[in-house]
């Protein structure tokens, strides 16, 4: 085999390997916020695509979403724990307004964990 042949084989192998690597290992951290009410998915929002803050009213709760995350702005529930919780901004984060049955979950487009123990 000549040097040129070896070079062709190596280039070919590298191209195939790069295609394989990009397809299966390229990480994606784009986050999606899912809003549930009483067990039903009501909204799915890709956070990175938001140019400005988006608000949503669900079951007595006002929710806000932006590139940084999601949060409860206000709620008609008694304790307001959901509002005090702050912003969810990482994959696996979950927050609920229990009295109103409203749940927000954050997940990455490509999940790194199946669940979070807390």
């Amino acid at each position, binding site marked *: 085999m000549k040097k040129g042949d070896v070079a062709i084989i190596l280039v070919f192998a590298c191209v195939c*390997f790069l295609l394989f690597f990009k397809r299966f290992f390229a990480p994606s951290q784009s986050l999606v916020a899912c809003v549930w009410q009483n067990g039903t998915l009501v909204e799915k929002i890709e956070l990175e695509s938001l140019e400005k803050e988006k608000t949503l009213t669900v079951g007595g709760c006002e929710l806000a979403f932006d590139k940084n995350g999601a949060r409860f702005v206000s709620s008609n529930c008694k304790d307001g724990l959901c509002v005090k919780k702050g912003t969810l901004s990482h994959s696996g984060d979950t927050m*609920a307004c229990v009295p109103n049955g409203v749940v927000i979950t954050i997940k990455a487009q490509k999940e790194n964990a199946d669940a979070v123990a807390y």
Partner: protein
Amino acid sequence: MSKKLAKTKTSVEKRRKILTGVFCFVAAVLIIGSALVYNSFKKEYDSSTKNAVAMGTVVTAKTFGKNTASVNETIVSCIQQLDDVISWRVKDSAVSKINSGQTVRLSSLASAINACNEVSKNSNGAFDVTIGPVSTLWGFGTENERLPKKAEIESALKKVDYKTLKVSGTRISCAKGQFVDLGAVGKGYACDMVKQYLEKTDVSGAVVSVGGSILAYGKRNKAGDKWRIAVRDPRNENGFIGTVLVKEGFVSTSGDYEKYFEKDGVRYHHLLDARTGYPANSGLISVTVVCSNGLLSDALSTACFVLGKEEGQKLLEKYGAAGVFVDSSQNVTTFGDVDFERAAQ
């Protein structure tokens, strides 16, 4: 002669180029083919996810295989039905009846209470489901949470004694004035119920979270990779200390960040030491237990938190369970057979 030689050289050259081309093509096919086979093994089965509120907390059910949407609905119903039996907040629940002085006959609850009492015995009373009189004084997670007076705690503590919570066959009763609170084990217990249900279905795998207590069931994908359960960073609610990898099993965490209030610069958290009536001060801020039983994973995580690292690890050894301990300096140590990937610092 030289013409013949030249001809021979040209045909050898041609043959070599053809062979090289064929070799490249075969190599490319093998590489891409391997990638496709690898991908098909890593591909998850069909799945669906449901998030709902049950047992006063967030339930997330992700199931893989057949009829997953309907399975998820049933999972949430299962959990709510269990809450109707074990919650002291539910007026006619079995536990409320026990607390009101009645004798209740229920084999599943009897087994659960026996298991709790066994943990109480093995932890020398650090964990005790008759903690109700004390936990209601503190009121964690309610609008009534407060720092009780010393005299109140001492008086309530007299009613805390797992030995007077009697289980005889399927019959359960407690002493007068006692108050059973299964809050420390309810979520793990719910995971046990869910597992029993899943075994009767066609789902190939599931990961279910009941307020952060986790059931990892069946296969994650065709390759049978381990389930990845991230563990909350006790001092950064948006971060993780690492990931526990399990084939199947239960994962529960007890931490001082879940329910607490601060008064005069002191944090009072909900993980009470049943021997003192006060929040445990064992040098730990989080314990995660991996176990083959949900109720036990919950009970052990609480007991280990109260006992501290050394005694907690001895307790885990008795049950063949494993754990991840985080101390107040945020040092992380593991114990037992646990596959734990530490998160990047």
